[in-house]
């Protein structure tokens, strides 16, 4: 009876452990976990060059064949900006370009950018829990930050130097979360 119970429990533990080992991981470009990447624009309007851009990357590792990268945005919210609020910097003023690159054994077709992120869009496309990347294959069986198999997600944000923007500070945040659908 005890052996029977133990066998059942070991089976249960094995199933749970397998689930527990299924991992999802986001790191920054230096493989540090829990990345907080600063996107600082500091620009003066000018006639040329036309835009100021900021580029950032995150690395995605998953041991599951099905995964999703979703994003949630707050802001940009103006502080210390004077003038007509319609002339504040808005999410729709900031262009957004995503690109995905596979490294190591990660399948080149395993991470697909979902429309409208498959081409240039703007930051207003990210709202709450917006579906950004559909992952259809795992990167490897490990999510260790030293694992060389990963998808590198590069995002490029640009803001045109327009004289219409009210001078001031604008703050916002974009959170990227890996989920198991």
């Amino acid at each position: 009876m005890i052996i029977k119970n133990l066998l059942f429990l070991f089976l249960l533990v094995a199933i749970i452990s397998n689930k527990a080992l299924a991992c999802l991981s986001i790191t920054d470009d230096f493989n540090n976990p829990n990345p907080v990447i600063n996107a600082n624009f500091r620009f003066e309007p000018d006639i040329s060059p036309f835009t100021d851009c900021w580029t950032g990357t995150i690395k995605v590792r998953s041991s599951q064949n099905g995964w999703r990268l979703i994003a949630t945005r707050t802001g940009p919210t103006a502080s210390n900006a004077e003038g007509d609020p319609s002339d504040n910097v808005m999410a729709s003023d900031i262009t957004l370009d995503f690109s995905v690159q596979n490294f190591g054994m990660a399948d080149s077709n395993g991470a697909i950018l979902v429309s409208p992120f498959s081409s240039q869009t703007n930051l207003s496309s990210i709202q709450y829990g917006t579906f950004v990347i559909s992952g259809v294959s795992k990167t490897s069986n490990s999510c260790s930050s030293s694992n060389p198999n990963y998808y590198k997600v590069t995002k490029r944000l640009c803001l045109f130097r327009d004289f219409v923007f009210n001078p001031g500070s604008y703050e916002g945040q974009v959170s990227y979360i890996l989920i198991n659908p």
Partner: protein
Amino acid sequence: MIRKKHTTSFLFVLIVSCCVFFLSSNLTAISNQATVPLNITVQGKLIITDAENDTNAGDNPTLNVNLKLVPDLVNSTVSGSSSIRIRTNLNSWKLTAQRSNLSGSEVNIDPQDVSLSFTTQVGSKGNPNAAKLLSPFNKITDLSQISTNNPTDILAGQSKTSLDRDPKNKDNWFQLTSNYSVSPDFFYEIGEWNTSVSYSLVSP
């Protein structure tokens, strides 16, 4: 029998505890979230450009305009004009002018003889209420009103010059055109008369 049950329960609790510990330790080891703060600072700026060379705009807020007059013995007045374009995202600014007499001006024209009038124009996305001409430049005056000793206020800027988003910064300008003229007079000596006017955008 009871002892066996107790043993089974003990083992069950022990294994489940180990399992929960194992599970939680693995979950804390992985990270599945990234947060990207987005901080944007828009700073104020003033730009003057030559209206005829607007594509090569720089951020030098001073522009020199050279005036050259050649009085002639004709019936019509001799006139000239120059235009500058202003772009700023500041809601408080002013345009000043200071004149300097250039050497080599052999003609005995007095600045009071040179009629001066300013007009303002805006691009299709410029703000016509961005600034107003200050007295005495809001009507026809003469060149002596622009001092050679100190900057003279010409425009009082009360709003940014851009009225709407302009994806190429092409049509969001506020333009100041100066027209100057001199009437023919036998009193003047033959030759060229030159003066230079420096326009500066300043943020008070």
